[in-house]
């Protein structure tokens, strides 16, 4: 189906089902229960999941597939956001022109930066991209935010003001980002007994975009172009002697992944019309690297899992406070309750970084290859080691290692 083989099609369908049903899946706990803290099914976070998923999937095309570790990908996300917000300011709140401009601008940016950075490989490439991104950050943060020439509005972030031109806005146009009138923050709430499910227009828009670009990513992975990118990662020398010019391949991969980032930036601005400079900082670039590795570099859905993982901890764990802990452990005798709260306290709320750091370590130590690998191990373990034994016998003659999935 869709020009994919059976395995990829089922993967895509599963991803589609999960994203479309996310409002249910992410809200398994009834409102008001002690576990409700862990619900993630509210519009903002769901949007973030898919947007960062897009960002990471794009990044993976460059890193996982081609083997070039960019440390400056957030720059493209940032310019995408700025471009989109500028469209809001100049044209109006329809997100389509904004997102299109995000794609164009980030593509041009990626072309320029990629052209220069790809002259080097390995760590030298990484540092070049980092340097470009840090320069972009500094430009956005201070140089381009001076009152005379304010393109970015510095630390506060670029916002839409009521006195902006917004030439395409009619008197009745919505004053929030919308797609031809469909407001991105429109949410339909469904109450089912104690459960509350939220269906948000913006989320579904992002989800559909994500499915499209994941589909595109699968096509790229399975295409001759994708094969060449993997070849670049494996042995660039040999590629040259095989008559292939690696530069256009790497540059194309760079631009494509830059545009994925730009798209993510544009979507971010469309969900929440503010573009902050810190989106371009190295920490943001580092975050997408972590997402990709955490999920499994070179795998198709790994980066999305990684993005979800990090965003979940950032948004859910940072919001748990002692008060909540006391509620959880309320059933215990007082001294035990206090002891438990004392023990757990460093890991939640302001300690969410600590938890995340520990989890990073645990994941790499115990699941080399990332969450996807972990999942596969789990599946194998569930299926029992009967097959493993068989495989071991066979492995002697054929070690069939399936390529990235």
């Amino acid at each position, binding site marked *: 189906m869709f020009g994919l083989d059976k395995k990829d099609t089922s993967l895509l369908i599963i991803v589609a089902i999960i994203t479309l049903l996310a409002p249910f899946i992410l809200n398994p706990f009834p409102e008001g229960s002690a576990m409700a803290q862990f619900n993630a099914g509210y519009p903002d976070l769901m949007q973030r999941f898919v947007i960062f998923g897009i960002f990471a999937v794009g990044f993976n095309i460059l890193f996982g597939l081609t083997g070039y570790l960019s440390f400056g990908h957030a720059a493209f996300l940032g310019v995408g956001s700025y471009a989109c917000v500028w469209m809001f300011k100049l044209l109006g709140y329809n997100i389509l022109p904004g997102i299109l401009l995000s794609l164009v601008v980030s593509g041009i940016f990626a072309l320029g930066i990629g052209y220069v950075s790809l002259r080097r*490989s390995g*760590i030298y490439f*990484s540092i070049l991209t980092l*340097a470009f991104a840090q320069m972009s950050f500094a430009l956005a943060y*201070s140089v381009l935010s001076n009152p005379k020439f304010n393109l970015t509005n510095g630390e506060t972030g670029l916002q839409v003001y009521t006195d902006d031109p917004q030439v395409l806005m009619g008197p009745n146009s919505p004053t929030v980002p919308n797609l031809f009138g469909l407001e991105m923050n429109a949410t339909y709430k469904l109450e089912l007994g104690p459960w509350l499910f939220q269906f948000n227009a913006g989320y579904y828009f992002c989800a559909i975009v994500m499915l499209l670009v994941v589909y595109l990513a699968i096509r790229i992975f399975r295409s001759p172009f994708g094969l060449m990118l993997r070849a670049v990662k494996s042995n660039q020398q040999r590629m040259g002697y095989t008559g292939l010019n690696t530069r256009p391949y790497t540059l194309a991969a760079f631009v494509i992944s830059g545009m994925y980032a730009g798209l993510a930036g544009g979507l971010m601005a469309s969900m929440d019309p503010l573009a902050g400079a810190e989106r371009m900082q190295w920490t943001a670039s580092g975050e997408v690297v*972590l997402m990709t590795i955490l999920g499994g570099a070179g795998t198709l859905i790994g980066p999305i899992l990684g993005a979800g993982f990090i965003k979940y901890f950032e948004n859910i764990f940072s919001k748990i406070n002692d008060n909540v802990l006391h509620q959880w452990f309320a059933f215990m005798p007082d001294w035990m309750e206090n002891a438990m709260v004392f023990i757990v306290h460093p890991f939640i709320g302001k300690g969410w*970084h*600590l938890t995340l750091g520990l989890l*990073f370590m645990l994941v790499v130590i115990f699941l080399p290859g990332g969450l996807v690998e972990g999942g596969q191990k789990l599946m194998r373990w569930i299926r029992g080691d009967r097959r493993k034994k068989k495989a071991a016998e066979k492995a002697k003659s054929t070690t069939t290692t399936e390529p990235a999935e």
Partner: protein
Amino acid sequence: MDGFLLQVLNGLDKGSAYALIALGLTLIFGTLGVVNFAHGALFMIGAFCAVTLQRVLNLSFETIDETKTDFLGNPLKVKTPYVESWFGPEVGATIIDWAVPLSILLAIPVMLLIGLAMERGLIKHFYKRPHADQILVTFGLAIVLQEIIKLWFGANPIQTPPPEALMGVANVGAIVGLDLPYPIWRIVYFCFAAIIIFAVFAFLQFTTFGMVVRAGMADRETVGLLGINIDRRFTIMFGMAAAVAGLAGVMYGPINPPNYHMGMDFLVLSFVVVVVGGMGSLPGAVLAGFLLGILESFASTTWATTTIPGINQIIIYLVAIIVLLTRPRGLMGRKGVMEE
């Protein structure tokens, strides 16, 4: 002119910090081939060794002063450090005053231990893993270390002043008849950095240790075949790198008060320094450290910032880009180190 020279000094000073951190980082990153994102955290822990010693020396017993009240209106508890009561107020106060230099003695074993533990417990398993995995695990570790320090010491900077005698400014230009007042402690820092750098170079240059480690990095397996226990040497190397980072941190405290995320502030720039210097080259790292330090200082002068606004924030990166584009392997990089 004086202003110019002053900025040279500032650059040297900044460069010292960059060079020291980059030196340790190169040992691990350029030589062992491990991308150590926790290196900044080691620098930070070094600084907190000084904080800890200062705290320990300031451990006090409380006496109640009935004549004064605290903020709640209760009688005020007056604290007297134990050292002052043991050694007498004079000597005690001097010991406390010299807390930072004294903490070098504490930091060396502590950092070595941390380095060894880190290598044996964690990094060891990652030599053969992809760089991506190394990044993830060391970054995780950096966060954990940082958060533990924050849990203990809070997020705000903590003053670790230099000894009274080394406070204030000295006129370093006096010899050549210039008026160049410069903070004494910064001069101390520069000299200290020079000594450490020299010591590390000497160790690696005049011992076969350096050669073995280089060989081990290129091909661990073969070095093992030649009967050399390369693991142990890597461990020592790691401990050394941690100690260098830690010492750089200890001595940095009096320049800028340590806080839990000072390591991260340095980390990215240190990576830039190492790579601009050229992978696998210690002199390159040191040279790039000083070069970028001086550049940064110049770019921050009033003249530069008013001529080209924002130049101070982009200059390092701009120069890094130019260097990397004109010299494929940074200033003095070796071929084949982390080029894929």
